[in-house]
């Protein structure tokens, strides 16, 4: 039954990819998405349930696993990875925060990672509005920090990012395939 569901989804995605037949942009194969901290901030806001202002948001595109081996293969260890697809992934802080021991000023940054088997190096870079990591310029790094990764028991088909609350602020969770990384963001 599971296989059939997968097949149906596959076919739907093929059909979706075909549907816009003019010279304006089709829907991306790796759709863009956005996440806020606090999570679902825009929804909380219209429900008058937001108890604090928006702190951060990430805009990223979501490649699918599509049966491929991701880490150590499609995404090579030791090389800069764009943490997404298409337009470079961006993180915006609406106030200054601390990552590791470093203060990060309010503003918009491009987010990259260098994955290795046990840890990822997360990079904040100030060269915004670019595409992927193809012209990544280390000179424009704002910070690099190393975070541990965790194996997941349940696979994640589409690259996913979300925030979770922590004692010192929040963590940006990045999950794809069988790997989850967590970037601590200090809001104290």
């Amino acid at each position, binding site marked *: *039954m599971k*296989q*059939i569901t997968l*097949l*149906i*989804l596959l*076919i*739907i995605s*093929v*059909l*979706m990819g*075909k*549907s*816009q*037949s*003019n010279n*304006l*942009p*089709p*829907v*991306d194969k790796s*759709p*863009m*998405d*956005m*996440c*806020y901290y606090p999570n679902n*901030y*825009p*929804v909380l*806001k*219209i429900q008058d349930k937001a108890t604090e202002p*928006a702190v951060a*948001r990430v*805009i990223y595109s*979501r490649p699918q696993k599509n049966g491929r081996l991701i880490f150590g293969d499609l995404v090579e260890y030791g090389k800069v990875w764009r943490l997404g697809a298409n*337009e*470079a992934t961006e993180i915006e802080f609406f106030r200054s925060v601390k990552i590791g021991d470093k203060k990060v000023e309010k503003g918009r940054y491009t987010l990259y990672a260098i994955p290795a088997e046990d840890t990822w190096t997360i990079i904040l870079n100030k060269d915004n*509005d*670019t*595409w*992927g990591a*193809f*012209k990544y310029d280390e000179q424009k790094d704002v910070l690099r920090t190393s975070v541990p990764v965790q194996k997941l028991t*349940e696979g*994640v*088909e*589409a690259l*996913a*990012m*979300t925030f979770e609350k922590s004692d010192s602020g929040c963590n940006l*969770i990045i*999950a794809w395939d069988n790997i989850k990384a967590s970037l601590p963001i200090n809001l104290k």
Partner: protein
Amino acid sequence: MIKLASIFVICCIFFISCTDRNENNSDQTKKKSDTTIVHAPSANPYAAIDLSPMDMSYFPVNYSQKKMTHDITTPPVMRVIYSRPHRQGRTIFGNLLKYGERWRLGANEASEIEFFQNVTIQDKKVNAGRYIIYCTPFQDKWTIILNNDLYTWGLKIDSTKDLMQFDIPVKKTSVDFEYFTMVFQPITNGAELVMAWDDTEGRLPINF
């Protein structure tokens, strides 16, 4: 079970080839039957894929690719971030979107336009910055509104934070748009923000 699956695949391949043929035909045979009804994308334990995916358009067009290939070194002029609902066989204007009622020009999060420099729209100066953009559609014109209520959800934009509004004509398109589409196209002294869905489009000229 596998047999059942193969039959389904064959049916689908047949369906795909049929839609292909329709697309190649002239406008006469262009039906809204190309629409696919999608109920729910695959599950994801952290963040489900949106039914109406988000997208981003820059001006200059494809700015980030051009920056990557070094074909452009100046900063971008503007960008829009919006979600792309799809028609799914529905009649959009005057039906799903009622004339005279507010339309969020997207889905999910309110659509956002950012000007990286000051621009002029219909002889009014618009300061560099980030705005929510939405629309009130009428049969013969759209009113496009820039609003200050950032980081909100499209269904409940606070109109007390409206900053400016602009009336633009609408026209029928020669092709149908399954997915709502926003894109910039260059004009003399600026660019137009093209907003197209179903068989209708509006164009907001932006000068800089």
